[in-house]
């Protein structure tokens, strides 16, 4: 018999704040966190709006144990966000680890705790590299590799490479919280968080761990990553637009997405062990499926494949599509991906599609890439717990009959919520969460 798997803690981190309460409250009140980008000047790029995590609100130094503060120096932004999310998730789960309330020791044995984190292609800091480049210029004012090899590279700190490896998110999180079970790093763009959750589920089901920190985090708010997203044609053109008009998923005006930094970690746990430790389930993971859209451009999604993911997730949950009470689509504002999601939802849910409430996160946080799914999942958990839906922000004119237009927060009867992702690279996921029972 398969173990039942539940979510016992959520720790989103984004421009809306750190932890589920700030995130949820902002979304209940319809307060978007998107603002003009200030952490670098994006003037050369089409989109000048994004979701930045306020440096005054989130300081990674203050949340790691004193003994680990030195390691903060070798954390890139993505790692900081993951470390912050982990603390939030563990707090929310009421757990104790060496990283949180360490005097009390462990609640879950270290070798029974795993960690699967979605992560992006992390860009090294341009300024840090340029500072080193200028020490080895040749006559043509470019890097002379002969000089770089002799002295130039010594201007990079010895651990420079380790700041930017994608698996350093999981590396730091496993060290801080002493997770010695299976650990992995999934790098599938915007599906990374959801695929990580699927993997954590398998790890727990097969008995290799009782609990896993799972989710993802990323920041593409730096020149190189931002340039790459521009080249991939994913960013909205914000020129002439009000901030709240930049991300308009599923609308005729939609012209791309805006990026946010953030993501989140969730504590996924076997129901049996959560019950045994007196933990509280926030939602149950009932269905999970992943598919691939093998389109030739490698970029766009395909409605048929997203529909296959939804149908497989329903089958794995043993549920009929009538059981789905709300959907958290990816809803990023990139027209081809929005269209594929609409096609999939309409084909699976038929006439009922237009009556299912949709929950949109990206108009609040920006597209947090590898971390995005964790925000969607965290919100879905809170919807189930509170039997209510957050406000929906969207200033666009819907191009479909789905419920994507603006709406106030509202109470709702919610038994099952479907959460979707469709990544750059073609990975699609569908996850079905049910209320904790």
């Amino acid at each position, binding site marked *: 018999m398969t173990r039942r798997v539940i979510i016992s803690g959520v720790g989103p981190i984004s421009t809306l704040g750190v932890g589920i309460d700030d995130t949820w409250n902002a979304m209940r009140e319809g307060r978007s966190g998107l603002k003009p980008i200030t952490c670098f000047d994006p003037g050369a790029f089409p989109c000048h709006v994004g979701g930045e995590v306020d440096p005054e609100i989130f300081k990674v130094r203050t949340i790691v144990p004193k003994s680990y503060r030195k390691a903060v120096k070798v954390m890139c932004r993505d790692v900081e966000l993951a470390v912050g999310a982990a603390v939030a998730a563990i707090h929310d789960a009421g757990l104790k680890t060496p990283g949180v309330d360490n005097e009390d020791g462990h609640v879950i044995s270290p070798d029974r705790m795993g960690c699967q984190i979605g992560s992006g292609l992390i860009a090294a800091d341009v300024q840090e590299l340029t500072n080193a480049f200028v020490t080895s210029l040749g006559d043509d004012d470019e890097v002379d590799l002969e000089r770089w090899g002799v002295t130039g590279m010594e201007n990079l700190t010895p651990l420079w490479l*380790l700041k930017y490896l994608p698996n350093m998110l999981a590396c730091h999180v496993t060290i801080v919280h002493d997770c010695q079970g299976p650990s992995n790093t999934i790098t599938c763009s915007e599906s990374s968080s959801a695929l990580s959750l699927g993997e954590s589920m398998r790890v727990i089901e097969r008995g290799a761990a009782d609990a896993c920190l799972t989710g993802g985090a990323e920041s593409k708010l730096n020149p*190189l990553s931002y340039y790459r997203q521009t080249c991939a044609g994913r960013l909205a053109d914000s020129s002439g637009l009000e901030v709240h008009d930049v991300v308009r998923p599923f609308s005729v005006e939609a012209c791309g997405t805006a990026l946010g930094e953030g993501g989140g970690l969730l504590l996924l746990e076997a129901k049996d062990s959560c019950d045994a430790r007196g933990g509280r389930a926030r939602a149950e993971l009932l269905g999970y499926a992943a598919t691939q859209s093998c389109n030739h451009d490698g970029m766009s999604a395909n409605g048929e494949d997203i529909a296959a993911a939804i149908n497989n997730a329903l089958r794995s949950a043993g549920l009929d599509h009538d059981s789905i009470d709300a959907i958290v689509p990816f809803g990023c504002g990139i027209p081809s991906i929005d269209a594929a999601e609409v096609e999939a939802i309409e084909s699976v849910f038929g006439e009922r599609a237009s009556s299912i409430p949709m929950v949109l996160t990206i108009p609040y946080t920006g597209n947090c890439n590898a971390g995005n799914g964790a925000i969607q999942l965290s919100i879905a958990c809170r919807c189930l717990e509170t039997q209510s839906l957050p406000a929906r922000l969207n200033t666009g004119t819907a191009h479909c009959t789905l419920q994507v237009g603006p709406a106030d927060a509202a109470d709702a009867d919610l038994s099952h919520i479907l959460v979707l992702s469709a990544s750059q*690279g073609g990975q699609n996921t569908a996850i079905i969460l049910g209320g904790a029972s």
Partner: protein
Amino acid sequence: MTTSQPRVVVTGIGWVTPMGHDIETVWQRLLNGETDITPIERFDARTFPTTFASQVRDYDWKQFVKDPALHGQPGIHTQFALGAAQQAWSMSGLDQSPNFDPHRIGIYLGAGEGVLDFQSYQKTSLASREDDGRTVNTVDWGKAAEQFLDGIGEVEQEPNMPASHISREFGIRGPVYNCLTACAASTQAIGEATSILRRGDADVMVSGGTHTMLHVLGVTGFNRLTAMSTRNDDPNTASRPFSRNRDGFVMGEGSGIIIMETLEHAQARGATILAEITGYGSSADAYRITDIHPEGRGPAAAMLEALADAGLDPTQPRDDGTPPVQYISAHGTSTNENDHIETLSSKKVFGDMAYDIPMTSIKSMMGHLICAAGAVEFITCLLMLRDQVIPPTINLHEPDPELDLDYVPNVKRETPLDTCLSNSFGFGGQNNTLIITRG
């Protein structure tokens, strides 16, 4: 392992390596104890602390795909993967199975990131400095990027691109993952693909890995970490795992891809079964960013879990007195720390029986293929099971007195084999072990 879950077998293998681009050529060279480590050709590394590497040469990915136009301008990591995948796919006979369901085929790669175009990147960064000659103006940087960087090349660096291209090449529409756990990635990918097949989420998985870090910032990064050998006067002897005077790993590059399927699916279509994957174990060190736990806690945990998964007791010899596994494919990087702790953890797991289990590192010949290393070593284990012979650990003339296991020094050994254990450990603390049994 419960009896109800599907058994997982391998039906195709392929690789693109510094020692060749087809299975049999490379296998013969490994048995001969050859190596081909030479000065770095891809950029001018003459003054770098390390000036040599194990490099893929004379490789044309276009010869391996149905229609190169389908793939545009793939990055090098994708190019390697496409060649390796085509070999594995055609060996598996799936190209002759017209009735396969694309939704029941998935991909799980442990592929690294692509290669940053250093020349264009430094040009972009230097051209966008403020008057102080140092501070990057990001608006100017963005404009310079338009001018100097290649947009498609940048997008193709994403680590999920090799999987994406493989899905395009073969029309795969099932679950697709990429994991990136440094040197452990492709072993972990194969292990998790096993888990997906056992769970029934797919009938076939394409797995393995691909990677190159043979570029200016890759070599710079590892040189700064002082993790690479600097034996510039004698590159071919630089990778010397378990040797007393080892001084770091030798960078390699390439790809290893395998086709895995459930036994039932393979039998139903009459496929040739090359081997069975019977065990997988995974752990995290959760110790330090750079160091492995001094007692080898993590590697030992991964090995123990894999053995238990395969139903093997590491302390119990078999009825004929031989150990439960007859070969260990070591992570064996030739760094001081790895080889020491790997030896220690093998003893921890197998006790005195560790001395009776040959343990070699093909990295002594091929160098370290980083994310792809585990898959290439896994494929080597399969060939060992097929031919009942173990390739040597070369360059092992002065053993480290503290490392006293049987590393099969310098000359291959013919020996009966039916179960192999393959280890991969990554920077960042991920440890992964697979158990492979003769099909």
